């Protein structure tokens, strides 16, 4: 599903360049539940941004769903993101003046679906994360865990190939974190490829494979004891 070869990325800082990713090779197969771990500054967020087509790499190759990603302009990237990727962010990033169901329906708007169809589908996915009764509530009327579940529903609604979750539990307490991870696990069981970025060991342990990053290099890549279905 995701193949990257010798990926490099550096950011200009003044006259110098900060070399963040120093040759990453990684393969994520369809249906995998992978976590990418690392302390801050390890390059994990940069990697996720590149995987999420929010940022471009300098060197190396990136295949998403078998398609080589290169020379992306914003328009093409937007179309690919909408088609292949679902995002879950640490700070949820729900649009504050839209209700839960409207938030979930938003990606479908950019996909070009009709209003009624969007609404139905959004409700269906809200039900999947157990928030159908909260459909017409604004984000500030929801708890952190509920917000993240809405965000997960929003990531799923376009039926993407990969879910990219950037510290999905970073703003949640441990009980809620577990629920959110369980939901992600359930989605994975249905065949969805999920990449989680985290710095929390116990969260990473709930995925099936842990890739550790340090200073822009993969230091280890191993399976966890979680049972793969």
């Amino acid at each position, binding site marked *: 599903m995701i193949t990257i070869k010798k990926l490099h990325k550096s950011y200009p800082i003044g006259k110098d360049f900060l070399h963040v990713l120093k040759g990453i090779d990684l393969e994520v197969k369809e249906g995998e539940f992978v976590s990418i771990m690392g302390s801050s500054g390890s390059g994990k967020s940069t990697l996720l941004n590149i995987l999420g087509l929010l*940022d471009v790499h300098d060197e190396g190759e990136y295949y998403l769903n078998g398609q080589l990603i290169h020379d992306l302009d914003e328009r093409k990237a*937007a179309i690919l993101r909408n088609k292949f990727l679902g995002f879950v962010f640490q700070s949820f990033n729900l649009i504050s003046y839209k209700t839960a169901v409207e938030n979930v329906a938003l990606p479908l708007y950019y996909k070009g679906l009709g209003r009624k169809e969007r609404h139905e589908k959004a409700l269906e996915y809200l039900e999947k994360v157990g928030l159908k009764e909260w459909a017409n509530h604004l984000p500030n009327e929801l708890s952190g865990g509920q917000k993240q579940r809405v965000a997960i529903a929003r990531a799923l609604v376009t039926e993407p190939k990969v879910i990219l979750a950037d510290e999905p539990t970073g703003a949640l307490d441990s009980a809620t974190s577990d629920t959110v991870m369980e939901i992600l696990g359930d989605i994975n069981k249905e065949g969805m490829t999920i990449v989680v970025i985290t710095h929390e060991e116990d969260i990473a342990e709930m995925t099936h494979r842990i890739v550790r990053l340090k200073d822009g290099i993969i230091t280890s890549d191993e399976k966890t004891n979680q049972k793969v279905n």
Partner: protein
Amino acid sequence: MLKNIFDKDTWQEISEVLRKNKFRTAVTMLGVFWGVFLLVSLLGAARGLKNKFDQELGDFATNSVFIWAQTTSKPFKGFQKGRPITLNLKDVEIIRNGVEGVEYVVPRNQTTSTVKYKTRKVSFGISGDYPFLAEVQKQNLVFGRFIDHLDVEEKRKVCVISVDVYRQLFNEGEYVIGRYISINDINFKIVGLNKNGRNGPSDDINIPFTTFQEIYNKGEDISWMMITANSGYNINDVENQAKTLLKIAHNINPEDTRALGSFNFGELFKKLTGFLSGMQFLTIFVGISTLIAGVFAIGNILLITVKERTKEIGVRRALGAKPLEIKMQIILESVTLTLFAGVLGIIFGGFILYLINAFSENSPEPILVNASVSIPIVLAALGTLILMGSLIGLIPAHRAIIIKPIDALREE
């Protein structure tokens, strides 16, 4: 891109954004609303004032001058100063034949007399007139006719009365054509009811010129004359030539500026027209400036909200919004705000004009007459608003898409 504009969902999305941020929307619209409101109500008021002037002065030919005689202020050819001058019918012929570009010379006689009808007795201005007075001063007859040639030839005792006279002598609704009123103890038959602008006592009651001569014993003397110029001739030149001829005929010192009085309508009209167009220009200038300031305020506030919404825009882009879609949304938000504010301004401005008109109609001396704005001006204003709204929207729209989605998301 065009598909977007006509897509119902695009508008639903925009109306949602605007509706759910009501306070922001209202504040943003205020400037344009105020600008359009000012433009509409000021333009309407200016038009009302112009209509008022037209109504007051419209009865007179705009290229006319009134000339009358006073007393000399300088000695000449052995005459002392302070000699009273009286114009007469010979002067009329002199000017008619001697001044180039004269269209009409209308002599008028005027005095004040007691007018009686039944038990009522009021003092009114009486004018002795020729039928062609109607050529230089439009006669708005409500009923009947004006003085005609036979009246003058046969020295008939007929009169045309003004609505003002009618109100004071008759009961409302009474039909007066054919009735007799007594002027200077002589019975006159009413042949016309005249609704003129307010031109003073000279238009209270008109009787034939010849009848006037006879009953007031005027001989050839006249009170004053109205002169109009043919088109292409300057009324000021005509006035000067006429005065020169009159000075020669009456032995007045050429340097004497007081012996002959005059009132130049052309001049007055030019001044008024200048004043009115100046005012209209000022109105348009003020209105459009306010409008531009308002549109800039919209652009400015949208720019701020784009900054505020950086994260939202980042989220939208992460979810698959193409740059053009983001751009279109901001521009359409801008246009919608501008247009909506503009329409509100027009409605409120129109409402104010409606109130002004409603009050004016009930008052006997309205300051503004039919204060209104023409539809083409309204449409042009709306068109300009759409244009300015989309142009100003380009700035925040550009701002919104130069931020990379990743930077937008990172912003807290």
